[in-house]
Every structure is written in C-alpha cells, then in structure tokens.
C-alpha cells in the first residue's frame, strides 16, 4: 500500500489551504435584514443559512444538504425559474454547466433557467468553488433539487387530475395528461398553497436522476448564458459595482514582509478634500471620492510612516531554506532494497513560487446598514468569506451578506476575504459604501502564492528494468497526486509530504501540488527510462496496468505519432511526454520544443488527451483544457516569484512574464468521453502533464536535464551580452 503522511495537518485543509489574514475589529450587533434581489420572491431565504450552520461553514467541498426544494428552486408566478447555488463563476464554466444540470432535470430549455449564484443571503452553501468539485458534487446536488422539484410538481398535477403521477409526461416546463391535451405549467402549480407547502417539505431521501442515455441538455455544448453581457462590457464584475454615495478606498501596506508599523500621522491625508482616514491598530486605510484622491491620501500619510523591518529569506536561497526547515524529513524505508538493486537513482526537483495573477485583482465593495454589512467581492469561497468578515467584526454571520458577482478569474487564488474585510473596515468609518480594488502590485505582493516545492525521489530497478521500490518526498507544497500510478514490485512505494517554514504566504492554486509532484515524477520516469535504455513511452507502459491512465497515454502518443517523432534527431528540437491523474481525471501530453541559440525554449506543439468520465459540456471542457495547457506553459517556462529583503522584486507584468498569444503552440486536444463513468471535474488536471513533458523534451533537444520549474537553460556563454 502506498501511504501519505498527513499527520501534520488535516489533508482536507491542505488540499485547499486558506491562509487567512487575521483582522480583528470592534463589536456591533443588530438584526439581519434580508434584501432580496430584484424580482425574486423567496420566502425561505434564511433556510440555507440555517441548514448549514451545523457543518463546516464555507470550507466544505460538496453540494449542500439543502433543507427543502425551495432552498434550491424558485418558480415565479410569471413562470420564471430561478435555481440557486453557492458556487461561483470565475470563467471556469460553472454557470453554463449548473444551468444545464437544472434544465435537464426540470425538462426545460437552458434559457428558461436563471441561475442565482453565490449570494450568502439567498443561496445554499455549496462549499468552496475549488478542487474540481463543481462537476462531481454540485452538479448532482443541483440535479437532485431540480429533480425533486419536478417530482413534486408532477405529484401536484396528478392530485388535481386524480390520476397516478407515473402516467404524466413532463416537457418544456409543462406537465401534460396523455390523451386529451390538458396540461399545467410549473407556474400554475407552484403558485398555489399546495405548491408552496410541497416546496417546504424536506427533500426526499431518494431522488432518481435522469440517466445519461436520456440526457438532452447535459452532454451538449452550451455557451455561457450571459455571454452577451461579456462582449458588450455590461456585466458588472466585483470591480465594477457602484453604490450610491460610494467612496474609493486604499490601504496602507507594509514596505516589506514582517515589517511592523511603529507610527504614522494621517493628518496630511485628512487634509485632502473629501478624505476619510481610518487607523485601527496596525490597519490604516483611506477613502475618497475618487481612487486617485485616495491614492494621494495614502501617499501623503505613507511619507510619515515609521516601520520596523525584520529579516526575511531570499528567493535565491529558497530551496535550501525549505529543506533546512523541513519538519520530520522522512527516511527512505527501502534503503536496503535499493542497495541490493541492479540500478538505483535519486534526484531532487525544485518548484518555484508562482502566482495566479487573475485578470481581476482582488476587489470588494462594502456597505453597512446599521450593524449589517453587505460585501460584493470576488472570491471562490463566499460562505467562508462571510465567516471571515463576521469574525473580523465580531458579528454573527447572519449580519454579513457576501454577494459574489461572476468575477475575473481565480485559479485557486481567491479563497480569502482580505479585500472584503478591508473595504468593510473603511466603509464603517466612512459611513458610506466603499470600493476597494487592489492594484496589481498589491495582488502580486499581498495575495498568496502557489507553494514552492523541494521534491526528492528515489527508485530502484531490477536487472530487467522493472521498478522495485520508490520513495517520493514533497517538502512544503502538498501531497496531491503524490502516489506513483506505476506498478512497483511488492508495492514497495512510499510518498510523503512534509511541511516546512514557508517564507511566503501560500495557498491553493489550480491543481495545487499535483503539478509539482507530477513534474518531479514524470521527469524522473524519463531519467529512469534513460537508465534502463528504454523509450520513455514504452517504459511507462511497462509499468502501467490496463486502465484509464494507460488509455490516455496511448491515445496521446498515437495522435502525436510518438514512435516516429521520438526517433528523429534534429538539432535543438525535442519531443517529450508525461501523464498523470488527479481528482478522478486522467491526462497525457506529448510536446515538441525548439531551443534557440540563446537557450530560449519555445513549445511548438502539444498533443493532449484528457478523460474525465462522462462529458457534461464539451465546449466548456475544451476551453478548460486549452486554458490549462497554456497556463501550464507559464509555470513550466516563465513564472517564478523573486523576493529579497521581504519584498517581491518582480511584482509587475513587466518583470513577471505570463503566457501571451505569441506563446500559444499548435494544440491538438483529444477529449475522451467515457459515458460509462461518472463525471469528474476538469478545471485542474489538464495543467499537470505539460511541464514535465516540456522538461523531457528539453532534455532530448539539448541533453540538459533541468530539474526545476520554471525550466530555464543556463545562458550559453556565447550568447551572454
């Protein structure tokens, strides 16, 4: 058995770590006033809040156990259908997919569904939007609520007609009696007293979902329902929320990590017309009628600030630092076997800190009404942030309402509530709504990072080149996808994650540690194949059982024409492959790279096969896979946080390079639709194979094995300026 060392921290928590900012402000109390969205008549808006109180708030991953159908579905008297979910849309396609889920079970076209997302005052807590959880957990939860609603409505119609419900047909939002053409619309039934009563009943224990063979909406390509608003600029992102009388906020930031504020004079800031200044312990914020004026206020006060700085490690010595501070670095339990083995190998791989850099930096608007606060903000974790804000102000959670308009990208980087808390603190002092929009430099410095990693792998092989033992240790970045999917004799395999003392605030990221662990393992597999004198594809196949991973690898290699291309020898061109599995889906990538005279690596071609069970929305899936591959090229070749003396020294898109249009390779993407298997999420796993495939290709192109992400070749002396 392979094991994970998860004794240091709950693995659940480490899968989607949220490193909270510890704000604590004063106490206020008053009753919670529900302000419902326009046109909605939801009588049970408190139900989802109450229903969730017992469980882990906001940190959960799955579909909510809603109290009743009314918490999930509302049928308006005008026939409108509103479906409610705590999931967010950040570009990953959840709005289309969950709309499909509802439409499928309610037997209506997708344009009949209005999907109300991520408003803690109105929707059930479906957990954080992370960990590829929407497809396997929230889609079923929404389908159950909608299927239950349909069953209730059918029963109501049957009661009216005094017939058995089994004989009734549901189509296009109508329940029809066979034969005489009589029908009821959903609105006819839901608007009655019986309808209201039925929707308040607890959800039945068993609900039958529409089988895949009968899917009409799920499994088809559905575009994002609000795409007109995206191309016209009408959609209001959290950054775009405007409230009457709203001011614009700025927050004083320390000049370096671990610096503490000794003193500051906010009077010069207050002297600027319209400026409100807030000083509360170490927190200093400003609000003004424009962000320009707020910035001026911040600058004026900053000049008076006295800071005490502290030592902080440098990115130049990061990997040694992480190893040095590793807690309980485990010993390889197979050292005797390795000593006796025909061949053995040990390597270390390093992975840099990188950042999500979503297009929309953190943004929030906070508005107080007495002792209630409403915060519009960009977060993947609406209920978690509701809790964070409530804690910061010592409020009962009912007095905090978090509304998350569809926002500008997350990638695991928006689990925390900093901007919402800061906006609320300034708004409280200003007595007016306050918008706080982080600058790019703030996002680069004060948001969190994908953890850096130091990974040691050791393995041994028999004389016939079969793996006989395997030991994988991840320092600092996490245990995702750490267990080798390969056959190892007598299961002599251990993989262990140990924490270190991370110099930067770290947290989740698309696929989190799987990228690091798979980069290390798949690079190492190529090194082992070399030691065995074997082709990298064949070496992997020799160690893979029949099954889904082997299938995607085989398909990718065929589509790429691996066997031919791997034989070709062209100067400065190389091919490489890699595969992996995480979160229940499977991926394999083959790439071709070109290396120029200066050692610059360009990815020219990627063939990737991806399989995540039954495909819910092929259009959305393709977007996710394309995006993940290209984003993966960033982490593979370009991105690394640099820091020195507690400062990020490349906190700008001028210094921190991310993939652009000119970096996009030829892409051949093959999506395998396994309609016989349950659907897994697809937002993360398609990112994991690209980096090791590139490293393996670079080795074939240059003979240089780069055991670090980003993969950078040493500049050849001839090319140095």
């Amino acid at each position, binding site marked *: 058995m392979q094991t994970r060392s998860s004794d240091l921290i709950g693995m659940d928590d480490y899968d989607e770590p949220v490193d909270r900012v510890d704000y604590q402000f004063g106490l206020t109390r008053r009753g919670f006033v529900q302000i419902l969205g326009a046109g909605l008549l939801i009588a049970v808006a408190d139900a989802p809040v109450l229903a969730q109180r017992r469980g882990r708030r906001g940190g959960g991953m799955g579909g909510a156990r809603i109290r009743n159908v009314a918490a999930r579905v509302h049928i308006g008297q005008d026939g409108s259908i509103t479906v409610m979910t705590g999931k967010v849309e950040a*570009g990953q396609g959840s709005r289309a997919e969950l709309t499909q889920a509802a439409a499928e079970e309610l037997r209506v076209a997708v344009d009949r569904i209005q999907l109300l997302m991520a408003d803690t005052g109105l929707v059930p807590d479906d957990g954080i939007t992370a960990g590829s959880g929407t497809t396997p957990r929230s889609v079923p939860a929404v389908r159950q609520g909608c299927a239950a609603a349909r069953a209730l409505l059918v029963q109501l119609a049957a009661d009216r007609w005094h017939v058995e419900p089994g004989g009734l047909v549901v189509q296009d939002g109508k329940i029809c009696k066979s034969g005489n053409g009589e029908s009821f619309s959903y609105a006819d039934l839901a608007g009655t007293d019986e309808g209201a009563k039925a929707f308040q009943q607890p959800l039945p224990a068993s609900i039958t979902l529409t089988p895949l063979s009968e899917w009409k909406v799920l499994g088809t390509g559905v575009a*994002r329902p609000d795409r007109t608003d995206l*191309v016209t*600029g009408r*959609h209001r*992102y959290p950054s775009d929320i405007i409230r009457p009388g709203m001011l614009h906020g700025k927050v004083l930031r320390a000049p370096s990590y671990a610096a503490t504020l000794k003193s500051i004079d906010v009077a010069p800031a207050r002297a600027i017309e319209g400026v409100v200044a807030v000083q509360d312990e170490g927190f200093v914020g400003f609000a003004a009628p424009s962000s320009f004026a707020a910035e001026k206020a911040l600058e004026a006060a900053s000049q008076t600030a006295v800071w005490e700085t502290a030592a902080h490690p440098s990115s130049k010595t990061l990997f040694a630092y992480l190893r040095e501070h590793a807690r309980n670095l485990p010993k390889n339990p197979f050292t005797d076997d390795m000593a006796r083995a025909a061949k053995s190998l040990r390597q270390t791989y390093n992975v840099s800190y990188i950042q999500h850099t979503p*297009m929309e*930096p953190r943004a929030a608007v906070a508005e107080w009404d007495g002792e209630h606060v409403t915060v519009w903000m960009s977060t993947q974790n609406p209920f978690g942030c509701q809790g964070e804000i409530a804690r910061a102000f010592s409020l009962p959670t009912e007095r905090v309402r978090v509304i998350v308009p569809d926002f500008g990208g997350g990638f695991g980087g928006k689990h925390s509530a900093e901007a919402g808390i800061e906006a609320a603190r300034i708004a409280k002092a200003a007595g007016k709504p306050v918008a706080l929009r982080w600058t790019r430099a703030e996002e680069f410095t004060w948001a969190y990072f994908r953890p850096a990693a130091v990974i040691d792998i050791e393995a041994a092989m028999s004389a016939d080149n079969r793996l006989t033992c395997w030991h994988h240790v991840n320092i600092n970045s996490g245990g995702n996808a750490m267990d080798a999917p390969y056959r190892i004799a007598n299961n002599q395999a251990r993989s262990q994650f140990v924490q270190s003392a991370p110099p930067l605030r770290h947290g989740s990221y698309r696929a989190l540690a799987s990228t690091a662990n798979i980069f290390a393992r798949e690079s190492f597999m190529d090194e082992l194949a070399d030691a065995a004198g074997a082709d990298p594809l064949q070496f992997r196949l020799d160690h893979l059982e029949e099954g889904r991973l082997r299938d995607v690898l085989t398909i990718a290699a065929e589509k790429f024409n691996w066997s031919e291309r791997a034989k070709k020898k062209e100067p400065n061109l190389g091919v490489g492959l890699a595969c992996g599995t995480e979160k229940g889906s499977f991926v394999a990538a083959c790439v071709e790279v070109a290396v120029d005279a200066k050692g610059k690596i360009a990815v020219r071609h990627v063939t990737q096969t991806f399989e995540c069970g039954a495909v819910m929305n092929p259009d959305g899936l393709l977007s996710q896979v394309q995006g993940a591959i290209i984003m993966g090229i960033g982490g593979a070749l370009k991105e690394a946080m640099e820091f020195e003396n507690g400062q990020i020294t490349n906190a700008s898109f001028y210094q921190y390079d991310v993939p652009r*249009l*000119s970096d996009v390779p030829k892409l051949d993407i093959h999506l395998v639709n396994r309609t016989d298997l349950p659907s897994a999420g697809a937002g993360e796993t398609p990112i994991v194979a690209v980096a090791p495939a590139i490293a393996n290709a670079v080795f074939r192109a240059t003979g240089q094995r780069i055991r670090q992400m980003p993969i950078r070749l040493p500049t050849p002396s001839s090319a140095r300026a």
Partner: protein
Amino acid sequence: MNQRISFFVNGQQQTVNTDADRPLLDVLREDLGLTGAKYGCGEGKCGACSVLMGDKRVFSCRTPMKIARNQQITTIEGISDGTKLHPVQQAFYDAEAYQCGYCTPGWIMATIALLKNKNQPTEDEIVSFLDGNLCRCCGYPRILNAVRQCAGLKGR
C-alpha cells in the same frame, strides 16, 4: 489641482472636473460609470483597459486626462448599434472567445484598432499586435479564432 477637461466619449461631449494627471480609465469608470474598460495592471502591460483614441488603441490606465483632452474616445459601450453587436463583438460571441470575460472588452477594442489600421492583417500581424493583451484564463485559441474570423482568415 482640478480643472475642467472636455473630451468626447462614444460621440458625446463630456466635461469633467478633474486632476489632469488622473488616468482616463478612472474617469471613465468612476466619473462616467462606464465600467467596460477594466483595470488589470495599471502599467499598460495587459490591455484590459484598452479603448480607442481616434482610431488608435490606447491603454486608458496610462493615458492621463491631459492627453485625452478634446480627444474622441470610444469604449466597449459605444460600439454596438442598439442591440446589434459590432462585428468584432459578434465574432467573440460566436467563437465563445472568453472565459471569465474580464479581459474581453480590451481584446475587442484592440481588435477593432488592429482592423482600423489594417483591413486584412496576417496571422503574424494579429499575434504581434495583440501580444499586448493578456488573458489569464489563457483562452487564446478561441480569441485567435474570433480575430481570424474578423480578419477574413480561416479558423483552425
């Protein structure tokens, strides 16, 4: 020091009382309520704030009001004809050339500027011009398809 600055936005004259160093982006968003142009980096390196000044794309985050004075500015809000989308908007709509969509107005405005400058750009000209725009969802393949469509090039 505030001053009255007049300029034209989507064909309408606007006069604002503002510091002349304030970025055009802030005035559009905070004073005029036109939030289609987005803040992405504040240094002209991501293109999310792209608007037209005359026929040229400018990064409105790096365009102070003293430069915008008396200029014709076109934003994403000003390009459709009622409910009829501008052809570039339509192409982005059809190609589903967005993921989170935050960068989409910037790409559309940049594409319009590209096509005003050159009716039928080549693939290389498209990539070279639009390399100033970022999409962190990395939805580049669909974006490129939309732009190819507008440029009369075949999608791939």
